[in-house]
């Protein structure tokens, strides 16, 4: 289904006489020469195609029509390549009720003229997908990225250059309604950091009261930098499927997550699944009002609190684990005492990072005052 057509016709010299121009006097139906499908914009696909027109001396009429194809007509551009100084575009007109436009091109003499037509084409786009295979120790991955071209534009392309802003460039034929998957990026031994995160704001505190297990989310983090063998350009977002070498010449599938667009130097995290071998039990063991201020009616108007939180963590695995606990203290507060160091993520969020040894058990307690509670 070739639907995008270019017809070069001699239209006579009477330039403005023909509002209903006949497109009969066909001079040439030039074939596409080089075609580029540029997919660096996730929402719009730019097609550039080069064609050789046989121009007569004088004014030529070139019809460009795209029945059944979704071209953004405002985006169509033409560029004269062989004789850009001599050959001029006189006008562009759009016939009524048609997916077409007509260029009036003036040529000082008969030329075989190479032109480049570019336009935004709808219903053709790409997806990016990733496949990562982790080693048995989960320290690095072999990363592959695929370009999936989805062409539902109504147009067939033969031998088009298909490219993103990075990775391999492909020269492929793509038919209308065809989907094509191509491996465009491979990186070996990309370092990963495996991390488990217990977020006390989201997960239940007392697993024994929960039907089923409380899974602790597990993530792999990859940095888009030179050290990772990446860092040349921002990585496009897309679905990633993560596998692991099982040590027996096979792999298992660990899980899948979306990679967000990741600029250079930034990192992305892939949530692969939940660990049920780490059990976290959090309990508040003290919570009393102190430093109480009352108004004339003897009503409490301002107070502080004295609170102690106790978190027991058990690792039932025979390997050590990196665990991050995210804790929340609302409002204004002062830490009195803590069994473990923490990072203040923001005013109300505390992050305890800990290395849990294999089969290890640890207890975190932190004692704090909330201040000026009203």
């Amino acid at each position: 289904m070739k639907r995008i057509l270019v017809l070069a016709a001699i239209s006579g010299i009477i330039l403005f006489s023909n509002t209903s121009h006949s497109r009969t006097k066909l001079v040439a139906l030039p074939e596409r020469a080089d075609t580029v499908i540029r997919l660096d914009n996730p929402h719009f696909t730019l097609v550039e195609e080069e064609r050789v027109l046989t121009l007569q001396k004088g004014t030529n009429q070139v019809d460009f029509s795209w029945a059944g194809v979704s071209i953004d007509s405002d985006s169509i551009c033409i560029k004269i390549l062989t004789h850009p100084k001599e050959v001029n575009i006189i006008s562009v007109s759009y016939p009524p009720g048609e997916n077409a436009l007509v260029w009036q091109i003036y040529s000082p003499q008969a030329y075989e003229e190479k032109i480049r037509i570019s336009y935004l084409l709808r219903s053709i786009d790409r997806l990016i997908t990733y496949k990562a295979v982790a080693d048995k120790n989960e320290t690095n991955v072999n990363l592959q990225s695929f370009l999936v071209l989805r062409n539902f534009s109504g147009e067939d392309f033969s031998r088009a250059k298909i490219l993103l802003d990075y990775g391999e460039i492909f020269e492929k034929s793509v038919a209308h309604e065809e989907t094509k998957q191509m491996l465009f990026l491979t990186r070996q031994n990309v370092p990963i950091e495996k991390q488990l995160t217990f977020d006390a704001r989201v997960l239940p505190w007392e697993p024994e009261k929960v039907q089923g297990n409380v899974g602790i989310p597990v993530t792999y983090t990859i940095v888009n930098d030179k050290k990772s063998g990446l860092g040349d350009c921002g990585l496009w977002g897309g679905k990633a499927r993560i596998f692991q070498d099982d040590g027996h010449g096979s792999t298992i599938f660990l899980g899948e997550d979306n990679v967000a667009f990741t600029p250079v130097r930034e990192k992305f995290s892939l949530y692969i699944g939940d660990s049920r071998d780490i059990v976290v039990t959090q309990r508040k063991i003290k919570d009393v009002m102190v430093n109480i201020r009352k108004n004339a009616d003897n009503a409490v108007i301002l107070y502080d609190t004295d609170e102690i939180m106790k978190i027991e963590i058990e690792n039932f695995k025979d390997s050590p684990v990196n665990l991050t606990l995210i804790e929340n203290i609302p409002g204004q507060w002062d830490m009195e005492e803590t069994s473990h160091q923490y990072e203040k993520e923001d005013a109300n969020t505390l992050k305890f990072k800990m290395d849990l040894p294999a089969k290890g058990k640890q207890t975190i307690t932190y004692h704090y005052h909330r201040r000026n509670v009203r």
Partner: protein
Amino acid sequence: MKKIISVFCLIFLFSAIGYCKIDLTTLPERDRVQLTIYNSADLTFVRESRTLTMKKGDNRLQFSWANTLIDPTSLELFPLKDADKITVTDLFFPPRITGLGVWNINSHISGKSPCEINYFTSGISWQAYYLATLSQDEKTMKLDGYVKVTNRSGEDYENAQVRLIVGKIHLLDEIAMLARRYPPYGRPIEVIPPDEQGRREQLFRAKAAVAGAADRVVVKQIEKEGLSEYFLYTIEGTETIPNNWTKRLLSFSQDKIPVVNFYKYEEERFGKSVIRFLSFKNDKAHNLGKEPIPDGLIKVFKIVDKDEHLSYIGQDNTKYIPVDEDVELNLGAVLDIKVEPKLIDYKTYNYNFNAPNRNISGWDEEKTYRITVSNYRNLPVKIEITRNFPHQYWTIENKGDFGEYRQIDIDTVRYTMEVPPNTTKQFTCKVVLRWGDRQH
């Protein structure tokens, strides 16, 4: 029902776009197939090896999977040998054809070449389940663990190596949805596909509910190992699992597991009933601890006489139990153990009146409960009584036979006691709750 068909064909490259399905050179059978089946999601990872016959130059391999539940976005082909000489240039899904993908392969060699084809399918599932038998004195238990594999994928898998994954996997899309979706990666503007496959699957599910099909016990070894956050069970040898068949395999059988019978009473969780629990630990001391125990239904029986007749006690869905963790099986409410708290004394005092309008601003509330714990069984039992308070401003005074008392958190306390057979124990607890500005 072989539905997955690989057609290997030779097409000269520049014919392009007109996809002819002729020039068939080989129709390779599977040499080996490995199924890795997940239980937390409807997902099976299939790896199959087939020997392809390559021609020098450009080759095409057509793979079709009509009426199966394969996720086309997971399809992958790679050479197992001569990886530097054989390049998979792309995989395309031709227009207006469902259930078909074609790989373009460029080869620098000709002849037979072993390749691997990987994909995800839905429709194959596995489930762990357990039969537990308590000894007559209820001190030990025999535990048989089974795995049941059911294939409703639409495809027969012959002589497959079967691996089962225990773990909670994160998925963005259901594999069954991806299997039904046409085109495989959707359209640039998403159109909802006709739901014919969906109806078909519902039918399967309806059948699944009644089917306990074709159980057959095979004593095979199951290799077990941990990988990442998962546990991998590899069933010895190979299995043939035709479509719509279920297979049951014994995973482990362990006798003489010491168990603790205990009972819980906590009004806020269980109401007025006493709930029976059976507890043991997944460790060496309990003759277990070799591997985590996957979640599944456990049915608990008890040997009632010398002839080993059985009586059914109850069932529970177990959690996943890591090695060294305690297991508590909830076997439901019982009538032969009773816990009856009775409010026997009630007082309020220490009233505060705030200065300007002399309204009540605080007081103490004293509640005295007599808690009667009765064991009507012929066996000693352990009972755990948990009491919750409305807030953290309280004091408590326990008197009598209350066993071991422990504060759990700011508003929860627990009594743990052993009660001999046919015995009733009593204790009182006086709780003083401070309200209003008595809390300050």
